[in-house]
Structure formats: C-alpha cells, structure tokens
C-alpha cells in the first residue's frame, strides 16, 4: 500500500501538468495572428504588412525601414504562415539555426570563429531595426518610406 503512494502522486502530478498544458493550449490557441481571424481570405495570409501596419505599427514600420524591409524579405520568409501551411514553421521568434542560417551561414560561422560561441544574432543585430542606410541617409528626414 505504502509503495503505491508515490506512484499515485506522480500520476496525479502528471495529470495536473497535462491538464494545465491542455488548458493553456485551449485558452491561448497557437494561431493568434490577426490574419488567422480572416478565414474567408486565407489567400492573403502572406500579406501581413497590410494588417500589421494597423495592429503593430511600430514593428511593421521597423521592418519596412530595416535591411530586410528594403530588400523585401517579407514576414513569411522567416516567420512562416499563420496557418502553418507553408514550408517555414510559424514562429514569432524564428530559430537562428533553422531560419537565419539559410542566408547568413557564412556570417554566422565568422562570428563563431571570432567569439567562440554561438550567439543569438538578434541580440546585436535586431532583425527589424537594422537600417539599410546607416549614416548615408541620416540627413534625409523624415523617412523615405511612404505608405
């Protein structure tokens, strides 16, 4: 009888943890992007900018002004599609080793050689805030971008 008690506690804990996991998943569904709220237009899931200019204007503007924005490396290229139907997994924070590496492997190798450790690229080169023109365009305010 006494031997069964710890097992029971483990089972109970497991059930609790599982329940908690399920609960969180139901309450906070994995696809929360605005685009997913437009099931009538799934064809436009890749046109993130249009909605994100309204719902997350700072992020959208930052992207637009960043190197990725100038080069038209669009949201879905790194973040995937909100319904997960593309080849890139949908992620708010794309993995360095899965996503960044696809284009920046040579630079990443250099960084490892230089600093000896694998770092999160984002800590020094924020993806959305790395301006293309650096000093070259500093004088030209306001932004060249218009929507």
């Amino acid at each position, binding site marked *: 009888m006494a031997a069964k008690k710890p097992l029971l506690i483990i089972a109970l804990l497991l059930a609790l943890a599982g329940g908690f*996991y399920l609960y969180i998943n139901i309450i906070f569904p994995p696809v929360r992007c605005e685009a997913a709220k437009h099931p009538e237009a799934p064809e436009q899931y890749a046109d993130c900018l249009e909605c994100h200019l309204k719902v997350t204007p700072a992020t959208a503007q930052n992207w637009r002004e960043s190197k990725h924005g*100038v*080069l038209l490396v669009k949201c*879905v290229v790194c973040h995937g599609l909100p319904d997960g139907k593309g080849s890139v997994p949908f992620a708010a924070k794309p*993995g360095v080793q899965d996503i960044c590496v696809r*284009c920046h*492997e040579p630079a990443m190798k250099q960084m490892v050689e230089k600093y000896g450790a694998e770092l999160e690229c*984002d800590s020094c080169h924020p993806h959305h805030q790395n301006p*293309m*023109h650096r000093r070259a365009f500093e004088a030209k305010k306001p932004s060249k971008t218009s929507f």
Partner: protein
Amino acid sequence: MAVSRREFLKGSAAAVALSALGAPVLAATGSAGPDKWVKGVCRYCGTGCGVLIGVKGDKAVAIKGDPNNHNEGKLCQKGALLIPAVVYAKDRITDPMIRKGGKKSPLEKVSWEEALDFAAKHFRETIQKDGPQAVAYYGSGQALTEESYLANKIWKAGLRSNNVDGNPRLCMASAVAGYLTSFGKDEPMGTYNDIDNATCFFIIGSNTSEAHPILFDRIARRKESSPDVKIIVADPRRTNTARIADMHVPFKPGTDLALLNGMANVIFREELDNTRFIDRYTAFKKGTGEAASLEEYKAFVAEYTPEKVQEISGIPAADVVKIAKLFAESTAAVSLWCMGINQRSKGVWANNLIHNLHLITGQIGRPGATPLSLTGQPNACGGVRDTGCLAHLLPAGRMVENEQHRNQMEDFWGVPRGTIQPKMGLHTVALFENMVQGNVKALFIHCTNPAHTLPHLNKYTPALEKAFVAQTECFMDAETLKYADVVFPAAFWCETDGVYGCTERRYALTEQAIPPLGNSRPVIQVLMDFAKRVGVDPKLMPYKNAADIWEEWRKLSKGSPYDFFGITRNRLKKESGIKWPCPTEDHPGTNLRYVRGEDPLVPKDHPDRIFFYGSPNGKATIWLRPHQPPFEPADAEYPFVLTTGRVIDQWHTATMTGKVPELHRAYPSAFVEINPDDAQKLGVKNGDQVVLETRRDKMTFPARITDTCMPGLVFCPFFDKAKLVNRLFHDAVDAASKEPEYKICSTKVYKQA
C-alpha cells in the same frame, strides 16, 4: 525580445509537462539534418545564385545559399523556398501523356515508348510531306545548356530546319543585338564585381529589387558602404528599387531614347567626354551603317538639349543635366538595365544608346565602370545565346547566314557541307504567325509556357490549336498544356545535371541531387530518343549523358571569342561557377573582358589596354540613333499606358512559385496599379474592379491605388494564368532583334459598371 504572456505560459506548461515525464525539452524543428549537400544553381532568375541542396536518402529536404558562389550564401525568398514545395508539388507530371483523339480529347497517361512514337510519327510525316521548315523547336532560357545545345544541333544539322527559337527572343534578344552592334560580340564585358567598385549606378528599365533581389542586395550594400555612392533609378514606376536611389527619375513611358541622347549632349557640353578613349577605341556609325565622325555625332546629339528632353519625356531639364553629370563625373559608373529597355520596339537602339554613354566617357573596362545588361532567365545567356539556339544563330557567336560559319559547324558536327540551311529560321513572333497560317505544322516546346507569355495572345493561341504540339513540362497547371498533343514529363532541376550561365558570363553546374520523380526523364534523353525516331542519324548524338554534351560544346568553344575550354566538368563540380573567357584549365576566369592583362583573349603584348576583338576593326561602335516613340503611345481614345512586369514573389507564369504558399499568398492574383490622382479622376477606390480595354481585348482587374505608377501609367503583373494580361498587348517587335514590346501599349481604364 519580450516574451508574450501566452508564450511564457505555454512554454512553462510545456516545460512542466515534459520535465514531469523526464524527457528533454526538444527544439520545435529538431529533425536530423540532411545526409549531404549537393551544389547547384537556383532554378529561377538570371542572378544565378549558387545553392546547396540538402539530401536525405533519395529526397531533397533542404536548400541554402552556396557560400562560395557570388551570392555568398544568400538567397531571396524564391530560391530559399524551392524545396520542398516546388520539387514535390502535388501536380508534378510524372508520366508521359498524349491526346489520342485530337486537341479536344483528354490527355491520357501512356508509356514512354508510345508517347515518343506518337510524337515522332507526326514530326516524321510532317517533314516528309511539307519539308523540314514545317517543324520547329521552341526552347527556353531556363533549359540547361546541354539541352539547348543538343536541340539546336538536332534541328539545324539533323532535321535541317533552322526554326529554332525560344523565349529568350521575348526577353534578351535586344540586349544581344545591342552588344553585337556596339561591340561585335554578345555578352557583357563586366561582372557583378563591378557592383562592388562602382560609385555611380545608372539603373534604367529594371526593377532590380524584385526581378534580381540578390543583386539588389549587393547594390544596396555598396550604397551602404559609402554615402558617396550615387544611385539613379530612371523608371516611370517608383518601384522598390527606387527606395535606395539618390534620384528617382520618372519619365513618360517610351521616351528614354531622348533621355539617353540628351545625357550624351550634356556630357559633351560640359566637356565630360573622354576624347582619348573616343579616339583610340571607338568608331561612329549612322543608323544606315555608314561611317560618321565625332563632329557629326556631336551635332546629332546637340539637338537633344535638356529642354527638348524635358518636352519629350517630362524629365525636368535640370535633372537631365544632373544625371548626365553624376554619370560622367563619377569615378566608375555602372549601367544596369533589363526588360524596360529590351522589351521595346526600339530596344536595340536603346541598348546602343546606353553603350554610347559608356564609350564617350570611357566608363568601361575598369572595375566598376561597365554597361551590364541584366538577364531575366537563369540560362538565357549561357544556354541559348552562347550555344546559338536561336533562329539566326549558330554556336559561339556564329551566324546562320554566314557560309563560312555554317561550314565550320558542318565540319565540326561531321555532316556534309550544305547540310545547314542557308536561310535563317523563323523568330518567335513569325514562327507563331506561320503556325496560324498553317506553314509550320509541328512544334516541340521545351521548358516554357507560350500560351501564357506570347504577346497578343488572342492572335497566337490559335497557332497552338492548329499545330501538333509536343511539350516537355514538369507541372500540370502550365497554360500551354491545354494545347499539347504529347506531354513528356521532364526531370526537374536537381533531378538531373546541367550547366546554367547567368548575367555575368558565369557558368555553374547543378549536380543531380535526387532521382527523377516517378517516370520523368532528363530532357537530353527525351530529345535524343525523340530525334532518333524522327530519323536523325544517331551518330549525331553519341552522348551517354549531359557531361558528354558539355565536353563537345567546350571543345567547340576553343579558340572562339566565347572560349571556355578551361571550364571542364570536373572544375564545375569543384568550383562554384567560373566566368569565361577561360581558355585553359588553370585559368581563374575573367572579370574585365576586352582588357589586356585581364582577358586571356587579348594578346599580352597588345599595344592598347583595351581591345574590342569582337568587331573587325577592333573598335566599339557609337551609334547615331534618334529618339522614336513607342509603337502604340497613349492617345485621345486610349489615354493610358499599360505596362507589365514581375513581382518579387512570383516567377514567370507561377507554375513553380504558385506551389509555395508563402510566395503565392503574397500575390495570389493579378491586379492593376493606378496612381492616386488617376484613381480619383476615374472614381476608383482600392479593390474596385477596373476594366482595361485596349485595341485587342478588355479585361478586369482589382485596383491597387499606389503612387508606384506615375499618372497616366497603369501596371499589371503577368504571372496570373486566370488573367492573361498579354491578351491586351499588340505584337509589334523591334526591327532588328524581333523582340516584342511588352512594356508599352495604350489602354482605356474605367471602373466596371
């Protein structure tokens, strides 16, 4: 980066759950990587980025940029998403198909034997009845070099028909004729390295940002390296390319010839010409081909005063002066152009006028100073232009109508003299016209989709209804399949091996990474099996594989102005692309063509630093070409100009990019861009259905109100098969290059009732 509440809760819940089970917390995409990486070239654009294809077992599972190629590991979204969505698209064609009961009957799956026999029988009978001129090959700047070389040989030497043309006629023919007439030989003298050294970029008729994204990245990086680097973008549309420009110069569509002559005028007036260079390396010619003098040329361009250019093009006179000065005063200027210049009824002239600017200023033959024509497709340069796979050409710069050239090819190919027909074949538009008329009765289409891409489609699709059509294709949604009598399933890209040659004279090999899907076969196999059945002597095709064909082509190039004898298959396997001329195996490849000490074809002891050996007098030609309006400018009845082009996410007819959800959903369907001022006048709001009505047809598109287009101009992308915008276009071609004017036609624009 802040973690959202949901992520935190979910993360901790997962951690609790998993740690409770005693399992490690796995990464979301923790599958093991590929077994090996196979080197190749991107399937899409003329930038020609190197790729590495990740293979696991016999499946392609990943793709990344080749760090050793010019793209230094980078790919744009099209290249980066080639695998798996495109390679394993659900509608890949994996079995041969034929229509047993004529065009109206369905395509039925059959064996290879049956399909090949069926196609060959029709071609054989057509040749017997109507002669070899009744059969034609319509190829592609996306075909492999080995395929184009082989098809050209089969047709011109085997079947004795010069009706060999292809989609490069629709995109690069004017650039070819431009280089030929200005320098004597085709292909640019510069390379992408010039981008890293230029201090002035003159980009005209190119939306580099969307059509050549990785080159645009390189230009942007150059700009970023120094504020002194100036970028001029001359384009009636304010495209994304203009975002990095110091000057965006919109002008009335079709008036760029006036601008280019006007720039030349300013250069002389401001004494920014390079007299020493002009004297030593150039000759002048009138449009008639007659020789002219520098003085005559100066007097000719003197007519194009900045004020006159303003009147014609709408560019402020002060800006004409400014652009000309920026160009000529810079230490190294590179010009980049693409379809905006080539797809024009005066496309060759426009090409000549760009070359003129470089020749009068000496902005050529130095790092960063070069006229660099951007090529649209990945293998129009190497595969089609160099192998001579067009109606008027023979390999390595030879011409069909030159007897000596024909004899050289006949001797090399081991066929009797007189085998190759002395008259050039039919260029694309004439070919389809002859099909409509019933003169050409059987067509072999490889790797292209003419039912979607020809101009004036209503006029030319009947050609495909009338003629017998054999077609190689990978994807079931290609529009042309509707007209195909026989469909050969082609091995796709990394399922076979072959060479691509990109914009910068760089030849690079895609090695076979995986076996062909289903019953599909490499096209060289298909071509040879087909040709043998039609009656071509098997001795003409003694090849076991693509490498054998490359070997023959490499030997043929030896000693020619296209010499790449040093680019062996083995080298291509080891190196990530090599730029010709490259006459010996130890030669590293050439960056500055025509320059002594750089180009191995210029004798080391040549008295001059530059030697334009392509032309008989060793000099480049400066042409006196007047401004001419487009074939169909806007008028009172059709007051708008319609232009077409690409968007970054879709490639050509979207048979590939349409399979990639990330790309397709960015641009699921065609639209029309309208300037806000025009939209207001027309009472059109974003998303409204707008009718474009031209003299050929009318179509409806949803409106996108944007200041990308200048007032008076509307733009439609051409990728959408549900909206074949080419139905609206005329079929006027450049007199010399025979390239159609896809960039300008007049149209009415109104809101759908």
